[in-house]
């Protein structure tokens, strides 16, 4: 069990800066997910925590003790790799016990721990097999087992699910969460998949270009993104982002998206936005689920949009509809019974209580 602190962490490779000043406090037993597009520095950060990359500047501390110069073998961390990295010449049992055997644990203690981990992961019957006799999902379990038996201070996961097919990925995601609930080891998990990040994490760290964009609980990131990048990155399908202008007349504040279309800003937001009236360089953000068929439930200020549906993607429980506002693609989510058809006209209502307004100059959500 351990706390991990990253302080002003930098990593330079020759002339590129992969990680540019990261500050992060990871609490004991916490499950933290680093998420971001490829090249954002998340894996480099993880490898620095593991000790597989040297730190260019800054500090990594475990339980208050700086470990910058401690070699990986003495950091007491276990890592699960994207391609599993199982030792091909060893059986599952030998793979899982390798770390313990190196540390010369007594045989019965090793056997007990391996059996326990195998039971948790449901791989008891695979212990005598070689990695090449296992499926992808089974290999992934063994890789996790190898980490669990060591009972390390910290678990590090480097995109462990990206080599699995979609169905198995969902299954293993649940498995990882279940394992973490059982063993409660501090975990740092790297992924580029924001769904994985949202479902697994106690806290999500969104990274972009070597910096942290935002740290927060999954729901916080989803509902209250702080930057344009987070707003666009978290959520699938992504948030609709459209250039807009703020206007005010006697009916109140309005967001103008095109010559024909202006949506009323709800009073709760109006005070925050008023100073930006008339200013240029604003982006309006609204998630697809807040753009649905007209349910005519009145109450909150509903902005109505007449949409000419270009593409409809039925997903079963809902249908995604795509149309254009001012030449830009916009996505909405409607009920499968709403009768969305390609080429049809549809009246969609925007739930503007959930709107976001982004300042283009700073990228900050207002």
């Amino acid at each position, binding site marked *: 069990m351990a706390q991990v602190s990253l302080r002003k962490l930098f990593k330079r490779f020759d002339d590129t800066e992969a990680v540019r000043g990261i500050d992060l406090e990871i609490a004991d037993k916490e499950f933290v997910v680093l998420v971001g597009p490829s090249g954002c520095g998340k894996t480099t950060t993880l490898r620095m925590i593991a000790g597989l990359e040297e730190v260019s500047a800054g500090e990594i501390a475990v339980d208050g003790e700086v470990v910058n110069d401690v070699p990986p073998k003495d950091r007491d961390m276990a890592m699960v790799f994207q391609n599993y*990295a199982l030792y091909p010449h060893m059986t599952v049992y030998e793979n899982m016990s390798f770390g313990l055997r190196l540390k010369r644990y007594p045989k019965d203690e090793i056997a007990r721990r391996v059996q326990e981990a195998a039971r948790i992961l449901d791989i008891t019957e695979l212990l005598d097999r070689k990695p090449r006799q296992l499926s992808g999902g089974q290999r992934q379990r063994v890789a996790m087992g190898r980490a669990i038996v060591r009972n390390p201070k910290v678990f590090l996961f480097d995109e462990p699910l990206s080599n699995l097919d979609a169905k198995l990925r969902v299954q293993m995601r649940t498995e990882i969460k279940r394992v973490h609930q059982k063993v409660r080891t501090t975990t740092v998990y790297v992924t580029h998949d924001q769904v994985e990040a949202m479902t697994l994490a106690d806290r999500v760290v969104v990274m972009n270009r070597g910096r942290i964009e935002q740290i927060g609980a999954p729901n916080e990131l989803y509902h209250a993104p702080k930057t344009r990048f987070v707003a666009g990155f978290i959520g699938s399908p992504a948030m609709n982002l459209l250039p807009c202008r703020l206007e005010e007349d006697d009916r109140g504040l309005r967001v103008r998206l095109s010559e024909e279309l202006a949506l009323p800003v709800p009073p709760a937001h109006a005070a925050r936005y008023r100073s930006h009236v008339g200013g240029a360089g604003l982006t309006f953000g609204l998630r697809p689920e807040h753009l649905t068929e007209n349910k005519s439930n009145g109450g909150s200020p509903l902005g109505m949009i007449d949409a000419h549906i270009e593409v409809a993607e039925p997903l079963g429980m809902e249908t995604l509809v795509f149309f254009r506002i001012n030449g830009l693609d916009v996505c909405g989510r409607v009920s499968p019974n709403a009768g969305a058809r390609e080429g049809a006209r549809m009246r969609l209502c925007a739930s503007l209580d959930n709107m976001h307004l982004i300042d283009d100059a700073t990228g900050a959500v207002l």
Partner: protein
Amino acid sequence: MTVASLATDAATARRSRYGSISRDRRWALRWSYFFLTVFAIFFLMPPVYMLITSLKTSQEISAATDPWWVHNPTLGNYIELLTSPTYLAFFRNSALVSVIVVVITMLISVPAAFALSRMRFWGSATLATGVFLTYLIPETLLFIPLFKMFALVNEYTGIQLINRWWVLLLLYPTLTVPFCTWIMIGYFASIPKELDEAALMDGANYRQILTRVFIPVALPGLIAATIFAFTVSWAQFLYPLAFTTSADQLVLPVGIVTSLIKGDVFNWGQIMTGALLGAAPPLIIYAFLMDYYIAGLTAGATKG
């Protein structure tokens, strides 16, 4: 005519025009067998000729009536050689030198290859290329300067290096180490990086990574390198010819030539027998390790 038969006719017509995969394959196989047979005959002719000659008496050989047939087969040559202390001494010297050279080569080239391929240090890439380049220098260029060097060593230290069989233990590794290191570098490079990182995270140091992960995983490559080193030392001719002279210091290839050719008298029966017996050990090793050897030669070359 039914629709189905029309379709079949069309299919037949198409096949006859473009040929079929199975027919292409059949032709490819025919050509393969043809060339394989030609090559097999070509390469097997010398050993078969050696075998035939080794079973003849000197009289029959010099009569030269029928070079490809034995009229009065005899095991005389074999018995004579296998009971001759000189020939057995050559054999023992060869075996001793080859086995020790293999051990020395492996002890140097495996750790060297590991260091050059995995432990990133300044100049490691240049060094790896350098190791290979030394292999490209032919021994025919080296033996004269080496001879000179050994003479100097003798002059200054009094240590006699010439005409000692064990000096071959210093010389052969100059041929085997670079190539074996190169093979092993290629082989180690095909082992995914994550494997050593996983071992590092599991608490292994570099020595343990080498002995407990790399060597077992790269075993086919290791065997290939071993076979290579053994073959090179077993068959080496120039260095022992240049550096050893007295009968008790000679190794097999040189021993056969110097002891069985007396002046202009060629004892062909025994030369052939000696060469044939000398070729046996590598042949036996190849036969046992052939599968590994081929896997080793190809696996290092491409990824996966």
